[in-house]
């Protein structure tokens, strides 16, 4: 009798699960990096056009949000503008017994934006670090007007935020005066309206602002972000953009990922303003 009741409960649980599984039949979901949203949307549109019946849903939220969604199972594919951290891999492993599959799908140059009226044309990485850590708070020592520097940044769930902190600030903390904004477009908007503002974000977003040339160090030439300089690595602030899956891609997810890495998918990345990895 006890066993029968237990089995009945188990069957009820399985039924509930089946309902959940049926609910999950909704095509491929792609979530994560706001930097990659436009690119992934274009990929999805073109893929669905070329593959009638396929459904690919793309949403942003930031790399951290996308990775969290990958871990808790609410997205099939995560887009991230930074590599997964060790503790994130451990969380994925705790649930799925896997380390995740990392797929570099495009290359990006991270642009530094200032207002179009700002006379500053170039900064070194060290100057940029000083600006964003709060060591330099005025444009004057950088050759600009005697005006305060207004810092704009992404939120800490953003892969761009993490990449900038790790590679430009060398791990140091952002200045407490830094204003965080949701999305690169918001950063661009804020800088476009603020003559004293400075921000950073994906190169494909830089409208209404001016992009600075960056020196690797004080003795290096200043290099402006461009297709050529990002591709050849001479522009100092470049990075890979990734897709992540929990396990080796299979079925519809594999078809989509394979297409993203195909000549067509990579050509689309170039059209959007990023750089192919193949």
């Amino acid at each position, binding site marked *: 009798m006890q066993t029968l009741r237990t089995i009945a409960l188990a069957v009820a649980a399985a039924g509930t699960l089946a309902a959940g599984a049926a609910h999950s039949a909704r095509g491929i979901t792609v979530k994560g990096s706001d930097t990659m949203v436009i690119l992934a949307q274009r990929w999805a549109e073109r893929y669905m056009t070329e593959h009638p019946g396929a459904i690919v849903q793309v949403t942003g939220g930031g790399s951290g949000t996308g990775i969290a969604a990958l871990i808790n199972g609410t997205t099939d594919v995560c887009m991230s503008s930074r590599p997964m951290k060790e503790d994130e891999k451990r969380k994925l492993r705790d649930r799925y017994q896997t380390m995740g599959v990392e797929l570099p799908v495009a290359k990006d140059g991270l642009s530094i934006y200032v207002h179009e009226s700002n006379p500053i044309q170039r900064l070194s990485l060290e100057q940029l670090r000083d600006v964003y850590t709060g060591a330099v708070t005025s444009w004057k020592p950088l050759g600009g007007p005697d005006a305060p520097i207004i810092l704009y940044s992404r939120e800490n769930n953003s892969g761009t935020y993490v990449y900038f902190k790790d590679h430009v600030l060398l791990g140091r903390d952002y200045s407490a005066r830094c204003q965080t904004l949701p999305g690169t477009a918001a950063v661009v908007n804020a800088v476009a309206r603020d003559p004293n503002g400075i921000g950073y974000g994906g*190169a494909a977003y830089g409208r209404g602002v001016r992009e600075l040339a960056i020196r690797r160090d004080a003795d290096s030439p200043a290099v402006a972000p461009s297709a050529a300089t990002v591709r050849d690595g001479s522009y100092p602030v470049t990075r890979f953009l990734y897709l992540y899956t929990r396990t080796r891609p*299979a079925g519809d997810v594999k078809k989509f990922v394979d297409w993203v890495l195909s000549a067509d998918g990579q050509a689309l990345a170039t059209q959007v303003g990023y750089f192919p990895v193949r």
Partner: protein
Amino acid sequence: MHIVNPNAFASPTPREGPGVAPPPPGEVGLKLEAWIAAGLIVPLGWCGWISTVDAQPPGPDSLAAPAVEDAGGRLEGLTEQVQTIQADTDRMKRFKFSGYVQVRWETAENSGDTVKVSGTTLTPANVERFYIRRARLKLTYDASPLSQAVVYFDGGSDRTIRLLEGYLALLDPWTSDHRHQFWAGQFNVPFGYEIERSSSLRELPERSRAENVLFPGERDRGLKLVTPWTDRLETVVAVINGGGVNSLDFPTTDPTGGKDVLGRARWSQGVFDVALSYYDGLGLVPLTGDDVETDRTRFGADAQLYYELPTLGGGSLKGEFYSGTNVNADSVLALTVSSSVGRLLRPGADPAHFDTDFIGGYAMWVQNLGEKLQFAARAELFDPNTDLDHDQFERVSLAVHAFYDGFTRITVSYDVPRTDVAATGGGYDDAPDNLWTVQFQHRF
């Protein structure tokens, strides 16, 4: 480097904002008529003002300009409000709430829930029940990148809310991700693998018996230093009271005076992790008369191997081994604990044999069955006194998990323990104590 989505940059400028657009021409005409009518009926004392209006009849531009100016002011005001809200939101983001609830149905071959009634009759054993195994709420406050405070409550099967963990963590300022940590407070004992692994993630409803006996409650009070030497190698050193937070004697004081010291070194290769742990301390058994102090040492080794199969997905093999010296479980069982009579040795117990060597451990296999199902099997052993036969505990446990969504897990498990019980006609029998468990868990 070209623009791909101009709409992404469209911001509501004053000219575009709703309610600030210049009014249509017809509407302006109506307003002019109203101004003229008003000028005809107002008292003469206001003529100067009226004449000003008449002299400069407001055209569309002169009406729109103040409106735009007004809208600009409002926008600035809204911007300030948004910045204030943003600052408040940033402060609120320092608080993080998390937790989980585990609701269980259990049906067992025996139960400790038998209720004694008056007379000689006992109620039948309660072998089936619903209960809340764990209901936990954790609050983390990230004051800055360099410090953190955590309080963690449980209101589970005993229906009493109690503090499970409470500690502060200081993070180093010299690494980019602040990897070195110093903890002070009440936290999981950093020994082995399964102790620190959250019950919400574990593949079987309960930890192994060896862990339950050696680290009751899993938590203790003290200090902990976490040092990642490389991306792969991490060491932990801790000083704690010893005895655990569930101990009757150790909740606030440590009768042994000396503190227990432990350490662990873990190598994480990703697909293969291995760790060694060591614990050195003293246990005190308070008795009526002289108390007895015993060694409390534990050695631990654990390893986890992860793999992936086509179609099925990820899987893992995990194992953990414990050995050391502990208070003799048989002597402890022989003690009578009562606040009125103190603690006495049962007649026949050997005070000279208070601590004994023990061994324990488990081997576990976990296999995902796609992304919605998972299977787990574990075989375990705990021998509390290696010098004594028929006191071993063995158990085989099986579980299937169904993941309803990213936060909810439904588990059906079956435990088959084996314990030797002296049989009436001589020899030993396995006690009837198998257990079915159905568990619903939600994390947040």
